[in-house]
């Protein structure tokens, strides 16, 4: 039973994990992105359409990444180049995503594709309990593992990662050191958006291989909250996404097994935990353990004197 539960947890958590990782890259560079929901939808549609047209799942994933990147570059242009309001631009991006995918997705409704299938990793998938849930999954899930470690390594251990963090913390200081602030921010927003798009594509290529309007059903907003929950760390993003996916999976399985626990109670749990963790992380913030990039939400203008 634990195996099954963990397996469902990973599968339910993965789209949220991609979206959270993408959002973290955005925010590490100092740009708030509330367009996650819209980007996920764009990724979901582009991924489905790409696979439908080419018959290849890889093409679908690349299409999702590219389409979300292009959409994200609108946000990047407005917030980085034009120094527009990041909240407004992000919200607009979400609405744009919902609308444009509804429009272009019309012809995709009712079509079917062959979605991602499980590929067991020899040896590791034989491990007790964790073997099946973590090492007998589809390729996108393995990719999400790599991404978690890759992003953590990038920010902690590489020169570019350090530069990008500085851009988010104190763009003026980064500028003084010769880091091209605007370029870094632009790249962080577009690449982060692309990763969010893969999260959407996970829904349309693996969870339920089909295109349906608005199929992300609010997962993008959960990702926005999880960024704070994870205090901008990719490892904690993994924990948060799986916590959220796990509680959803658990409450459904409790019902199927016929527990007498109140359904409303069970369904409240994920949100209850979100609030709980937000409270804890806020208390930690007050104690000075702030992980939030100092320059988050602030546009950078070299000529702006502070």
């Amino acid at each position: 039973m634990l195996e099954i539960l963990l397996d469902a947890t990973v599968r339910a958590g993965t789209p949220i994990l991609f979206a959270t990782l993408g959002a973290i890259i955005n925010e590490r560079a100092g740009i708030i992105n509330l367009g996650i929901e819209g980007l996920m939808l764009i990724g979901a549609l582009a991924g489905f359409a790409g696979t439908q047209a080419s018959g290849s799942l890889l093409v679908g994933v690349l299409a999702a990444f590219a389409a979300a990147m292009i959409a994200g570059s609108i946000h990047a242009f407005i917030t980085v180049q034009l120094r527009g309001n990041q909240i407004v631009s992000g919200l607009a991006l979400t609405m744009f995503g919902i609308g444009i995918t509804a429009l272009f997705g019309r012809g995709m409704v009712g079509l079917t594709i062959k979605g991602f299938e499980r590929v067991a990793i020899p040896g590791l998938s034989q491990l007790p309990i964790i073997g099946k849930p973590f090492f007998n999954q589809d390729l996108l899930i393995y990719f999400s593992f790599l991404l978690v470690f890759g992003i953590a390594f990038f920010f902690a251990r590489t020169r570019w990662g350090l530069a990008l963090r500085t851009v988010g913390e104190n763009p003026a200081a980064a500028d003084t050191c010769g880091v091209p602030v605007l370029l870094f921010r632009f790249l962080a927003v577009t690449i982060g958006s692309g990763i969010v798009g893969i999260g959407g594509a996970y829904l349309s290529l693996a969870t339920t291989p089909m295109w349906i309007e608005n199929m992300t059903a609010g997962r993008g907003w959960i990702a926005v909250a999880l960024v704070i929950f994870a205090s901008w760390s990719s490892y904690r993003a993994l924990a948060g996404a799986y916590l959220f996916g796990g509680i959803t999976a658990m409450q459904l399985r409790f019902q199927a097994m016929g527990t007498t626990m109140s359904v409303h109670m069970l369904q409240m749990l994920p949100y209850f935990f979100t609030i709980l963790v937000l409270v804890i992380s806020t208390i930690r913030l007050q104690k000075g353990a702030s992980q939030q990039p100092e320059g988050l939400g602030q546009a950078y203008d070299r000529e702006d004197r502070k």
Partner: protein
Amino acid sequence: MKRFAFLALAILMILPQLATTAEANDKKIKAGFIYVGPVGDAGWTYAHDLGRKEMEKLSFVEPSTYIESVPEGAESARVINGLVRKGHNLVFTTSFGYMDATLDVAKRNKDVVFMHCSGFKSAENVGNYFGRMYEPRYLSGIVAGKMTKKNIIGYVAAFPIPEVIRGINAFTLGVQSVNPDAQVRVVWTQTWFDPGVERDAADSLLDVGADVLTMHQDAPATLQAAEARGAYVIGYNSDMREFAPNAFLTAPVWNWGPLYSKIAQEVKDGTWKTESIWWGMKEDLVQLAPLNDKVPADVKALIAEKTAAIKAGTLHPFAGPIKDQDGKLQVAAGSTHNDGELLGMSYFVKGVQGTIPK
């Protein structure tokens, strides 16, 4: 010349009369639809939109308007009002939550006919309509009861409201009529439209051994779950067999076209009057989608027989004796749940495993 002028005068005198009679015959129907979901949901809204398109084939119906994903509640009044202001003379509001908003707008626009789906309120210019979906649900239960081998059938349920409960009960009564050992396990998703959660709910039922699934949501996620795990599945809303070519057995489906065409015709003729329409299989508003070839011939014959009985009115799915989950008699032998009881249904019949969230 004089004669010509006389003729012209005569024509001029007759013309207005011709015009008025022509106007009575030429009344155009400009219909507007308010949808709760996107047309692309492949389910509830999609079925309504098929009905809309069928209605549009009538010569006197002008191209109609539809507005998708309108949030339920007071907000929807603004959207409904917008349709009225743009000159629509027939407005369909196709979800329960539009009921009060529809009545509200109707009060101020007496010259427009409103039709509200799945509600219970009406007014001078507001009618309501729905279908006896429990009839094909009952038939699909028979199919499930015959096809299950493990005697565990999974039901991915939406929200705990009478409409959904009625569906679960009708389905279970169908199951029990042919297979009293089978149980129907219910998992509530509390969603109308979240493919991810619905897929997970379907998987959780398969995990506890269900080998036939059915659902009440608008998206075909449950079908894909059954297809992926080699189980059988019964759809809902519209025929979605392309999502699960091997697993799909049948589906209780909506067929709004005939009803929408009838209402448009009545409004054009001026014979429309307020009524509560609750059509069933007899009127073809609800149907059972064609059975998959995996269903054995004797079951197909049984379904054909029961379909005929329901259409003839000799078989009512909610005819007694009906016991609830605790074994208490809810309907005595010889009597039947009346429409009021059906519309307010809030208990599970024997054979359902699960609880109704209170």
